[in-house]
């Protein structure tokens, strides 16, 4: 096992970055698109051979799924690898292509924004050298269901124009006895829908999420009722959705009825695995799964940009719920959008959230 730093490499990294990064006086330019994402057009490396292994062909029960990555330099020259492609522990990149019963699984782990790499960001493998690391596949993929999984490594050597794709063969793995990571405790709540947790939510987090869904249901019910009752443009309506018309009111009433219905009757999954600074995210075409991120945990339970309001925001994004967009973020911009472009305001997720939160209170 060789882990020596190559001086030649810092030059290589700098050369690759000159395109994206002229002098940056204030904030570092973020060239991560060139640095971390594996460009799909890369040629394959013949220098580095990757072998995967798992503790057993079949694993029983919940718990980590450890995959050992062994990298061997089969060429006659040194090979450099950005260290995040060969790193122990938690996944920081989409390093694997994973399938379950033949269907590919999305990468759900971290996606680290990195500054310009320096020589320290590279591992060097001498000719003939081998190294290995072990990662927990669960930190990047939803392995909560039983099935036949296929795991293939997908990393790269070098960087910039000299980068090459590195792939392994597919390692099959049978997982059995894996329960959904956590299921709602059978408390009496006003919801008929079920709530499932993913991404290793702690018990405190589960409590907070459960409360946020209950509060969001209350918000949606109140908003739905309010929109049904008004006969003209109230302060609250026009602030967030602009000029009043019966057609616009009907549209908003329909969207909030859908949001309410989803909270009350649909199976919702909340995933705590996101480490981004954002509040939350969803895939609009994949109802009703919501990932909550760092800002969510420090948000208040109710009021502006609250946990409950964030749930309204995210639920409104799903195509079959209200198909909202993120035209603008934040209260000031949302108020301005309603005043200048009501059509977009009626399809902007933050406008839905702020209408529902109604903070500061408007009649």
């Amino acid at each position, binding site marked *: 096992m060789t882990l020596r730093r190559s001086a030649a490499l810092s030059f290589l990294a700098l050369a690759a970055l000159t395109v994206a990064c002229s002098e940056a006086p204030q*904030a570092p330019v*973020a060239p991560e*698109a060139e640095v971390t*994402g594996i460009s799909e057009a890369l040629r394959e490396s013949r220098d580095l051979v990757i072998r995967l292994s798992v503790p057993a062909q079949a694993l029983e029960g919940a718990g980590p799924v450890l995959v050992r990555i062994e990298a061997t330099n089969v060429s006659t020259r040194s090979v450099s690898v950005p260290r995040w492609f060969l790193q122990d522990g938690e996944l920081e990149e989409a390093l694997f292509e994973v399938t379950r019963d033949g269907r590919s699984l999305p990468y759900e782990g971290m996606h680290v924004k990195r500054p310009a790499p320096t020589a320290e960001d590279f591992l060097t493998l001498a000719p003939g050298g081998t190294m290995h690391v072990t990662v927990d596949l669960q930190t990047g993929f939803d392995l909560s269901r039983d099935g036949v999984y296929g795991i293939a490594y997908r990393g790269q050597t070098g960087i910039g124009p000299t980068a090459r794709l590195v792939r392994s063969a597919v390692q099959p793995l049978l997982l059995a006895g894996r329960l959904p990571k956590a299921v709602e405790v059978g408390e009496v709540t006003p919801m008929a829908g079920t709530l499932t947790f993913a991404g290793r939510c702690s018990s405190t987090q589960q409590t907070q999420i459960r409360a946020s869904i209950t509060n969001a249901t209350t918000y949606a019910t109140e908003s739905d009722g309010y929109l049904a009752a008004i006969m003209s443009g109230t302060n609250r309506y026009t602030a967030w959705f602009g000029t009043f018309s019966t057609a616009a009111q009907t549209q908003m009433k329909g969207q909030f009825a859908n949001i309410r219905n989803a909270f009350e009757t649909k199976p919702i999954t909340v995933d705590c695995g996101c480490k981004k600074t954002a509040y939350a995210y969803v*895939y609009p*075409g994949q109802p009703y799964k919501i990932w909550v991120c*760092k800002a969510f945990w420090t948000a208040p339970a109710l009021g502006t940009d609250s946990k409950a309001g964030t749930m309204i925001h995210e639920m409104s994004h799903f195509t079959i719920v209200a198909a909202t967009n*993120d035209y603008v973020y934040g209260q000031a911009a949302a108020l301005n959008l309603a005043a200048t472009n009501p059509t977009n305001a009626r399809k902007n997720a933050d406008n839905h959230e702020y209408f529902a939160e109604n903070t500061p209170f408007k009649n």
Partner: protein
Amino acid sequence: MRAPLRCELTLPARVTSGDPIALTLRLSNPGAESIAFLGWGTPFEGMWTGPSIDVTRDGAPQPYLGPMVKRGAPSAEEYVVIPSQGVVTAELPLHEGYDLSRPGRYQIVPRFVLHDVVRGGDVRLPRRLDAMRQEPLRCPEGLLEITPRH
């Protein structure tokens, strides 16, 4: 009149169905002041975070398949700075945001909006969410032909 950012979009003209498709954005600053912009919703974020492009196949709109993110306050690291006369580029796999598996003629119409744009070096970054100045980023359209795999 302030000098706008100049945007160039690069796409392969023709690919075989199932092959990866990289979209490259190259922004240059022809003006005399530096320009800092928030990378949100652009390839400079390194991932798709919203439907910032209209994609149609033979005229039919194609749904956005990526995530949509509710933001917290921005951090300074989320800004990209282009010095006067400088250039930055970023690349994203288009097929990670949109379904491009079916053969056809695809039209790629960028609708990028920069959530905050700061000209000159006097403003401290990041700005608060309610002090941000949004600007559309005008980029050329692209055409892409996806041919069947044989």
